[in-house]
């Protein structure tokens, strides 16, 4: 089955290319809206990675929540307050410095976590559906996080209702 591996590698590198290029566009794009649309391709590429790692449920969640939910929210938000950085009164340089510091800090945290982690090489297993396993774990071992997530969503909704009301009142 050498052909299969080659095909997987080709798909993997093409997906990598899409993710990296679109992420670069998202970071360096002048207009916010271009950045948001480029982000869509990054998110879909990530879903492709999950598929290649046989995490089918996670891949779909990636598309449903990030590409279909958060990105739409982001786009609506941008269309709502579509202004250039100059109009908002933000100097480019300060954002660059702040962004660089935040990015570096995040990067350091990531390196720390990666270095801390115990990386066992798992022997390759046949790919199996994951959804039912996730569901079983959510209802037994991770029941509390599951229920807390619903309360978190409730809190998020209360927050969003408040936010929208405040904006409307202005």
């Amino acid at each position, binding site marked *: 089955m050498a*052909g299969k591996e080659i095909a997987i590698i080709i798909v993997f590198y093409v997906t990598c290319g899409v993710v990296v290029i679109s992420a670069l566009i998202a970071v360096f794009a002048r207009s916010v809206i271009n950045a948001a649309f480029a982000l869509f391709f990054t998110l879909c590429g990530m879903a492709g990675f999950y598929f290649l790692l046989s995490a089918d449920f996670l891949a779909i969640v990636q598309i449903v929540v990030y590409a279909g939910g958060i990105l*739409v929210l982001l786009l609506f938000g941008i*269309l709502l307050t579509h202004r250039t950085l100059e109009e908002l009164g933000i100097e480019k340089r300060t954002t660059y410095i702040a962004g660089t510091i935040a990015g570096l800090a995040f990067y350091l945290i990531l390196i720390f976590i990666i270095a801390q982690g115990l990386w066992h090489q798992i022997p390759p297993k046949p790919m199996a*559906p994951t959804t039912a396993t996730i569901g079983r774990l959510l209802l037994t071992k991770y029941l509390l996080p599951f229920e807390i997530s619903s309360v978190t969503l409730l809190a998020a909704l209360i927050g969003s209702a408040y936010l929208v009301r405040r904006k409307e009142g202005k």
Partner: protein
Amino acid sequence: MRELIEYLLTHVPLLTKVPSIFVYAVFILIGAGVVLGYISVMVIIWVYLERKVAGHIQARYGPMRVGPHGILQTIADAIKLFMKEDIIIPTSHKVLFIIAPFLVFFGAFAPFVVLPYSESLYLSKMNVGVFYLLALTAFEVIGIIMAGWGSNNKWALYGGMRHAAQMICYELPMGISVLTVVVFTGSLTLHGITNAQGWLPWQWFISPLKSPFTFIAGFVFYIAGLAATKRVPFDLPEAESELVAGYHAEYSGMRFAFFFLAEYTAMYLVCAVTSLLFLGGWNGPLPRAQGWLGNLLGLINVLSKTYFLLFVMLWLRWTLPRLRIDQLLSTSLKYLLPISLGALLGAAIQSAIF
């Protein structure tokens, strides 16, 4: 399809000589090509029928000139669209303008990966099945906003925004009513869900005898599907008296044709999924049979249900008036969402007790 390829790989000696990946690729490509051909023919027929049905409901003839009773009308339209000038407005955002039809069409076409036509006529039994169908609406939503924004046209952007808002709102009741069915099936594949229904109409999920909650969910799903494909009474995104033509106002020729194709494909998809989830799919009124005859009868069952639902869509178009935008959103969030949540809870309790 996979079984067929594996059967051929083990039984045809010629195929064992080439790498199996090529055999897979070629056969999947053939399958996808057949699906694409089917979609194109189906859309051509249904656009003709839509105009004909519209005509007869309004006591006129509809297209009559091209061919006998105008049956070649849509083919002529397709040729016209193919030969039309391809206009990209210089002030538009060209990259987004060009990518948008691709994304929208992919969002409508990719669901056919998991859509079975009968018991053994299918491309793949993906484990996440219906959840995958839900995910693909993201492509359409983003593609539509992209088209609206890329056109640099006020009407197009407003239509695109309306359509995106409408699609995301109606995605929720759709997802929850699918879950109502999954409560009883314990499977997300369209195969598993269809096979959980019996051969007789009262064993389908649409029947109140099977469960009153899936009965409600079936209607919620179909109504939400109508809205997600922006059919009347939910056709606000392209309300032509207000918004010219919605998000594709600036598109011409083949680029417009792909939006059009995607729209009709999405209609077909909603009807096909409704018929599989709620109307028993291939477990139809026609008798059960084995082998290829069973598949043929199953195919006829699925297609007749799907086409009936498509006809209902055309029928509704000339029966109901259009909603207002506030009514549209409150229909989803204030009626369909609570109803579907209630049906989900009821179904869970029913399956736990009985």
